């Protein structure tokens, strides 16, 4: 303990402490989020789910989507959007929307798992629509190579070849896909949230969607083969880095070369 108390006056002590704190917070957060994901959802809704969901809907969603989810000027009708749509929009925090804007932003989730399920049950009862995918399609054990080809043809133009996201028109954007759960990726393809087109099962088969999720998880878990990817945003970020870091190193060497030795 004596040695420790002496080292706390070391000039690097503050930095070490800060790093330790960040690591602990990050670790706890990671544990908490994986625990959230570990709870698998079921698609069998009971009548009580539907009833409870209806109450939640009336209290939280009906302002924009209308009583009975028929839609108003501020929000579209939800008849026939399916449970998958609710699970994606509410499960990623996009709904309820904070305010009207170019697109609904991802934000901390407002409803817990149980409430999301009840809302999904209610909306699914209004009309047939895409349902929450089965666990077998989300096992990330598809063909990553075929998933990669499908991704480059159908998704990469908006979401970036490295799935890092990209800009659309007038303030809208395609979000980055790293860290999005397989279930939400599947639901987004099936329902076409916001301005994303719908990729129904006739366009990309459920197996194709499973391949795409496998591919996305594979590139996410393997990381960039070339080291730091600088946001995978291409020449702007890379050029900025080279201009600042590369030129900085050259300037530092020049100063050293021309300085007098003591």
């Amino acid at each position, binding site marked *: 303990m004596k040695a420790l108390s002496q080292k706390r006056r070391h000039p690097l002590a503050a930095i070490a402490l800060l790093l330790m704190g960040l690591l602990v917070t990050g670790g706890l957060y990671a544990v908490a989020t994986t625990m959230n994901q570990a709870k698998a959802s079921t698609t069998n809704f009971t009548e009580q789910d539907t009833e409870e969901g209806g109450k939640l809907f009336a209290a939280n969603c009906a302002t924009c989507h209308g009583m009975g989810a028929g839609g108003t000027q501020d929000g579209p009708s939800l008849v026939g959007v399916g449970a998958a749509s609710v699970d994606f929009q509410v499960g990623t925090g996009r709904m309820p929307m904070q305010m009207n804007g170019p697109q609904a932003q991802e934000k901390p989730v407002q409803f817990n798992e149980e409430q999301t399920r009840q809302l999904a049950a209610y909306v699914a009862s209004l009309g047939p629509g895409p349902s929450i995918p089965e666990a077998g399609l989300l096992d990330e054990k598809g063909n990553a190579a075929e998933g990669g080809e499908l991704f480059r043809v159908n998704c990469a133009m*908006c979401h970036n070849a490295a799935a890092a996201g990209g800009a*659309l028109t007038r303030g809208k954007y395609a979000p980055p896909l790293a860290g999005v759960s397989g279930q939400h990726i599947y639901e987004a393809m099936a329902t076409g949230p916001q301005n994303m087109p719908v990729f129904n099962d006739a366009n990309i088969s459920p197996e194709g969607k499973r391949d795409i999720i496998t591919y996305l998880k594979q590139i996410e878990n*393997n990381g960039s083969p070339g*080291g730091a990817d600088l946001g995978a945003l291409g020449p702007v970020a890379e050029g900025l880095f080279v201009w600042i870091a590369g030129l900085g190193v050259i300037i530092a060497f020049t100063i050293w070369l021309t300085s007098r030795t003591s």
Partner: protein
Amino acid sequence: MGNHSDGSPNHSGTVATAGQNEVEKFQDPGLPPHRLRLADTDPRAAKRAERQVALLFGLSVVGTFIFLVAYFVIDLGEGSGATIADIRLQNALLGLGTAFAMLGIGTGIVHWAKALMPDHEVSEERHAVRYEEDRQAAVRIVDDIVEETGIKRRPLIRNTLLGAVALAPLPAIAIFGDLGPRPDKALAHTMWAPEDGKLKRLTRDPDGTPIKASDVTIGSAFHVIPEGLNELHEGKLNEKAKAVVLLMRLDPESLNPSPGREDWGYNGIVAYSKICTHVGCPVALYEQQTHHLLCPCHQSTFDLTKECKVIFGPASRPLPQLPIAVDDEGYLVATSDFNEPVGPSYWERDEHERSINS
């Protein structure tokens, strides 16, 4: 010096007098006095600098070994089960090894020169720039060369040399010919033109399976290639680059087809060329609520509800529409080729467009 804070005028006692009474003469300050370095006076410091230089050279040796070990020990060959993490590790070690190997030698030499090698200053006197004799000598040399080659006396040699030099660039011009041949009509037509009266089906990119009209639900976007493209052996990419199409379905009410184009779509399903009319990037960023199509290269934006009219950006023409219908089995087919050349402008484009529509 007085107190500046109260703003009162002060006389510091110094007055500028330069150039008032005497011709100012710039004195050569000479070299600053030579300052000895630590290593020049202290043998221990010299020894330390020597060790530092040796350490830097040693670092270079280590770097070389890191490179060699990373190259030979990390096996990326087939059947080695190497993952991307292995590639990344090897790349990092190869880079670090090379960096240490090169920087170690470079910084070591510089440190050696700065700290240990003699550092006395030497001044060299300027030479006069040009002497008349030198100039005369150079002129004589040139004259001698011209005289000895005999180029003035032998016009045959002179003229053949001129001819050879004049013709020598011709091979380069011939090589430019390889930039051709001119595509001529190839740019004006795509694979969508019906073959032997058989209409081409719209098929999915990349697997080439045909698409039923009922598959295309509202809000869908399909990436489409023509039937038979995957079976091509030659020029497949060239054909694909011209024929790729984006298929979308929206509420038929929101489409506003101009007269003569009402039957180019089917129940709100429309197909447009994916090749931007600006410089030919693939326009595939479809927003299913605003019905905008965005080109990622220069942000040209096309409005699907107005027959892909340009609403923003540098493109000058709407995207060409592919007229589609449904065949007996319910599959989507192209009723004809595009009614104008797809993609960016080119020299003969107007001529080709007239001949397509005549």
